[in-house]
């Protein structure tokens, strides 16, 4: 497995991908609580017997106490598809010195989340988006899916095309989702903040359970450059000539404002959000994301 190693697996063991709301989903048996009534071991409630119910489901102890026929109802357990939306735009290719690129981090995160989903019996799928979205891997359960995920991740590349803005990219990704499920958006969210937030909320409004992981490089937060620089963006566009020493404070401030905006807005929208940096422990970020 290229994108998931046993050490990470050990650290991530015990995390659970559980949707917050019980959602009436596919109907296929899985781990999660749903509102539907089905067959599981969890007792939901007693219901008075009515004609047509199976006689197996009559609760005889209740009949003994109350002298009336009650039927036990159990909760149905469902499995959910977990779609991983991986940002493949040019800015993800940025790598600080000595650190892996954000894209690699994103791929590791995608592999870890797929493994978590698959190990609890859910489906895992992969959607890669930059200017247009592509369903790189349809959602399926099973152990073999993990290998497929790994291969699909390795096959992904940073798209060299001129990107559209982030909002339309996420919207395109949302279009590519085949059915409702849990969506984990892995992106660096660099771009138009308001548009991206709107697109993510739209995504959540489609009854997806949205989790957002922001991959960043410490350089983007610290801006460690000095002197006059000709900045070239990885996503193309005109190079920008700045004096790094003068622009750094304002940039850092703007970055912090953007980060706070994302954190606050997503939390208010009820979307789990975590920031993973390439130099740090991404497993902890994943843990924070999943334990909210």
């Amino acid at each position, binding site marked *: 497995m290229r994108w998931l190693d046993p050490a990470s697996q050990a650290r991530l063991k015990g995390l659970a991908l559980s949707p917050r709301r019980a959602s009436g989903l596919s109907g296929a048996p899985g781990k999660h609580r749903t509102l539907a009534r089905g067959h599981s071991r969890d007792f939901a409630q007693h219901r008075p017997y009515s004609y047509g119910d199976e006689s197996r489901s009559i609760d005889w102890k209740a009949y003994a106490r109350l002298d009336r026929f009650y039927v036990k109802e159990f909760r149905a357990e469902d499995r959910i598809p977990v779609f991983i939306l991986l940002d493949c735009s040019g800015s993800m290719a940025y790598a600080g010195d000595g650190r892996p690129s954000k894209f690699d981090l994103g791929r590791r995160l995608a592999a870890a989340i797929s493994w978590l989903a698959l190990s609890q019996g859910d489906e895992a799928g992969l959607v890669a988006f930059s200017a247009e979205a592509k369903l790189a891997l349809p959602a399926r359960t099973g152990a073999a899916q993990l290998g497929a995920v790994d291969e699909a991740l390795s096959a992904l590349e940073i798209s060299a095309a001129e990107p559209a803005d982030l909002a339309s990219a996420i919207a395109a990704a949302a279009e590519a989702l085949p059915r409702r499920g849990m969506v984990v958006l892995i992106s660096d969210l660099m*771009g138009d903040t308001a548009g991206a937030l709107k697109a993510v909320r739209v995504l959540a409004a489609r009854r997806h359970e949205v989790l957002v992981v922001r991959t960043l490089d410490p350089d983007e937060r610290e801006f460690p450059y000095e002197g*006059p620089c000709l900045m*070239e963006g*990885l996503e193309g566009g005109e190079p920008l000539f700045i004096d790094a*020493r003068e622009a750094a404070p*304002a*940039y850092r401030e703007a970055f912090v404002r*953007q980060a706070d905006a994302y954190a606050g807005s997503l939390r208010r929208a009820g979307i789990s959000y975590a920031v993973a940096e390439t130099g740090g422990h991404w497993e902890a970020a994943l843990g924070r994301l999943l334990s*909210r």
Partner: protein
Amino acid sequence: MRFGFPAALWALPLAGLPIVLHLLSRRAARRVQFSDLTLLRAVDARARPKARLREMLLMAARCVLLAALILAAAAPAFRGDAAAGGQGLDLVLLLDASYSMQAHDGVRMRFDAAREAGRRLLKRLAPGDRVAVGVFDEALKAPLAWGDARAADAALAGAKPGWRGTDSDLALSAARQLLEAAPRGRKRAVVVLGDGAEHGLRAGAPLAPADGAAVIGLRFPALANSWLASAGPALDSSARAPRLEARLAASGAAASTPLDLWVGDRRAGSTAASAPAGGEGRASLSLPPADNPGAPVWAGRVAARVDALSADDELYYALSHRPSPRVLVLYADPSFFRAGKPGWFLRELFGGGRETLAGRDADFLESARWNEADLGKYGTVLVADSARPAPGLSAGLESFASRGGGVWFLPGARGTEADLAAYPWLPARFGPVEEPSSGGLKPARKGEATSGWDELDLSRVTISRRFALEPAPGAEVWAADASGAPLLVAGPVGRGRAVVWASPLDSAWSNLGLKPLFIPWARACLALSVSESAADISRRSTVGASLTHSWSRGEAAPNRITVRAPDGRRTTIDVSDRKAVLPETSIPGLYTFEDGARSIAYAVNLDPSRGESDLLPSKSPPWRSADVDALDTVFLDSVYGKDMSVWLLALAALMLIGEMLLSLPTTLTPLAAPKAMAKVAGAAALMLMLTLTASAQQGDRFVWTQLQLGETWDPYPDAPSGIVSWLDEVTSVRTSPQRRVISLNDPALFSSPFLYLAGASAPPELRDDELRRLRQYISGGGFLWIEDSGGGPPGSFDRWLRRELPRIMPDSALAPLPASHVLYRTFFLLRGPAGRVRVHGAVEGVEWAGRVAVLYTRDDVLGSWAKDALGKPLRTCVPGGEAQRELARRLTLNVVMYSLTGSYKADAVHQAAILEKLKAAAQ
């Protein structure tokens, strides 16, 4: 602006170096790959205008700095007229030695001031400089020649002011010629040490000295001056009534001064004179009678009051008048004075007690007593009634006339031809008496004596009887009657003259005495009787001109003559061609030509025609004017130029400071400083407001406030954020994500309605003021949740609390809350307490005013919230596990909701629903 070192100006393009460097730095910028430029672009767009401005200012400051340094290195000099020259200085000093420089301005003479200024200037010269000194008044006293500073100083020291006028133009053109002849490449300067008066500059716009030369002149404050313009005989002055007329002129201010008249060494009179500013006034002085009536000569001076310029307040005069000596009238007998007789007419003529009409005074004497008279006193003897002459009279008269006197002969009515022949020396001989047929007379000669006769009607003068006159050879006939017979004959007798009239004055003989012709006739006779007399002469000259004295034909001219100058010096000059010439007069005064007995004075005065006494300064002199004391600075500025390099260096220093300030990091730039300070001020004001107002709620948000008391007050630092976020999620309470930590003395205590205190070990004992504050807090409505986070058997914290609480709230005690307390129903429906541990059956609380004000739990409720780095729960809940954890979380929420909402869930309206839910849950 002139530059002392123009080669440095070639380096001026270097001042553009900062711009070039700036442009190059753009190219030299390193290329950096960055992930996304959106933020950077936004930041740059916002900061660009300010940054660009700062950049521009910085570059401008650097360029100006470099330019100022380069210009300063080029040694600029401002407004130096001579600064373009090279090394060395050619200086021409022109010292004005005219008499106007003798003006005294109360401290010292102008000449001395100018000379001192010149000598001070000489001290400022460098060793390689050349100086030419010229002392000038109307001309240069010596030609200009180059010398060194010492020679110049000696020349200046030896100069003295003179008595001549000023001609600055001449001196300036001489200086110009000298400078033009000098080699080029040196600085040139001409300094005129004069008074810059208008009188010295005639030519309007005079030639400027050689180009590139600095010309400086002195400027003195304006002085008003008054002077005597002239003192000479008045128009009506004569030997008998000599008068002097003096004219006083003033400039600058009106003047009025007393005038003193000196004749010789004696003061002879005074009067007052006044003149308006810029004009003249006249005064007349009467001279005393001459010492010698035969030679009425006066010489002396007229002195006005001494003012600023004393040289022109004294004027010398030397004048002589035609003498008009008395007349001696000789008559024969007392019947001479009877009416109709000549004496009657003559007495009228000579005044008879009043002013004489003939211009001379007369004494009457009987001719028989003629010896008694001193003939030397008289200029003319009028024999008015000649008959038989007295003994010796004819000879005496002849000798009188030959000595220079005049004889006027009128025949008497009783005179006979024979009597009249006793005077053979007369210019005419008397013939027999005739009775002409026609009357009238006419002048026979043109001359000054008969000049006024034409206006009179001469035809009405009838001479009925007369003697026939036969003029002697050499005599002149001045008047004849109608038939041509001579009536008036005049001729020389020895050195004198005699005049003969043909007819007695008796009215029987002619009516001349009654006619208007009588007076002019008498004057003419008297004039004719006087030998060539000296005319009215005023002997004057001006200083500097030569004096010439010439002898008239009648006088004997000596071979040599001595001239005495006013200062006492005597010069002997030769007389040639009856003329003696004194070549030069250098000082004003009376120059006396002494010739044995006689001495003739000439008055030599200052030349007023040049206007030298007018001390008003010229309004636009052709040089740069400098005050006497400021000559040095003006000279140095003019020749070497005002040194601008100091200013340029100061500008460079200023630019350096500006550049340093601008290139400081952005947070400290002067442009950002006001904004930063405004921000700081605004933030300070806001913080002040925050601490004053009830900011605990941060609006209306719930803030988890934790009390910092003791050492173990914060066992689970991350738990509150989890609690608050869950609270935000589950309920509709608006929360603030940051917890607040305060101490008991914090003023924000009273802005935090919910307070949490945890501890495992006992905190220090509470002080009295802290107790008081806590009591105030609780009684004011605050909710305090105290938790023993040890979770085990009661420890020191428990003991401490049970000790302190009665001190805080003496009236109430800690009591366990029953399971039916509304606390277990405020949000979730709970059966009982839970926490990380579940040891105790109930929580305890202190009731106050109907609510639980202090809640004490010992089950470590917050411990169930603790999470590790991965987000998994840190501590396991015993014994219930995750279910217990869930219950603990619910209890936390309930407590918070209880603190916020109180016991409203205990209201009756909620009871039914709660009961139902409980029942369903139980099943």
